[in-house]
């Protein structure tokens, strides 16, 4: 169920975010340029797989989290909320995978 999915993706993201943060801290040294990013990511299969997985995990984790927040803090609940969040999840999935594809090198 939703709780299990969110916690499972949380474990995945704990690892992925640690890697991502370390990468960010390393990569921004002395400023960031597209060339720097793209030389590392172009044709890099390991990168694409890692970030692809990252995107999928986020697309599951974030909407479930938002669902809790909205149900707790607003009066919105029920089917319309679930539909809206599914749309958000798909948006994250599509935009995210598109971004991975874009930096992998189209």
């Amino acid at each position, binding site marked *: 169920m939703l709780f299990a999915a969110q*916690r499972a993706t*949380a*474990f995945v*993201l*704990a690892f992925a*975010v*640690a890697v*991502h*943060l370390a990468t*960010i*801290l*390393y990569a*921004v*040294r*002395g*400023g*960031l*340029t*597209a*060339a720097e*990013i*793209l030389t590392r990511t172009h044709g890099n299969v390991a990168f694409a797989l890692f970030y692809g997985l990252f995107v999928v995990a*986020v697309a599951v984790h*974030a909407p479930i*989290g*938002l669902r809790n*927040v909205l149900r707790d803090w607003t009066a919105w609940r029920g089917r319309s909320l679930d539909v809206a969040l599914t749309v958000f999840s798909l*948006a*994250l999935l599509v*935009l*995210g995978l*598109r*971004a991975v*594809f*874009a*930096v992998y090198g*189209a």
Partner: protein
Amino acid sequence: MRASHVQRGFVAATLHRLSGIALAIFLPLHFLALATALNGANALDTFLAITRQPIVAFLEWAIVVALALHMTLGLRVLAVEFFDFRERTLAALSLCLAAVAAVGLLFVLNLG
């Protein structure tokens, strides 16, 4: 009227939530930004130039902090829920915030 005092667990959970909301708003924008590379490296560079403005640089720093915050506080929740971590002191929360501060500081230092 009938307020229970804000407790440290509530502070942790609320910071966790707010950072999560910030990240959820930020992510679609992040994906759109990266996808500008579809139009070539120059397109991405043009976008990155925007991020050098002070206000944007600050927001960038803030979102990195939000990410670190959300992760460390999330690890606290996972520890209590799945590893039977008996956290009753301020120690765990302080550790989380210290780690986040370290990340925030490192980011600023590296950017410069």
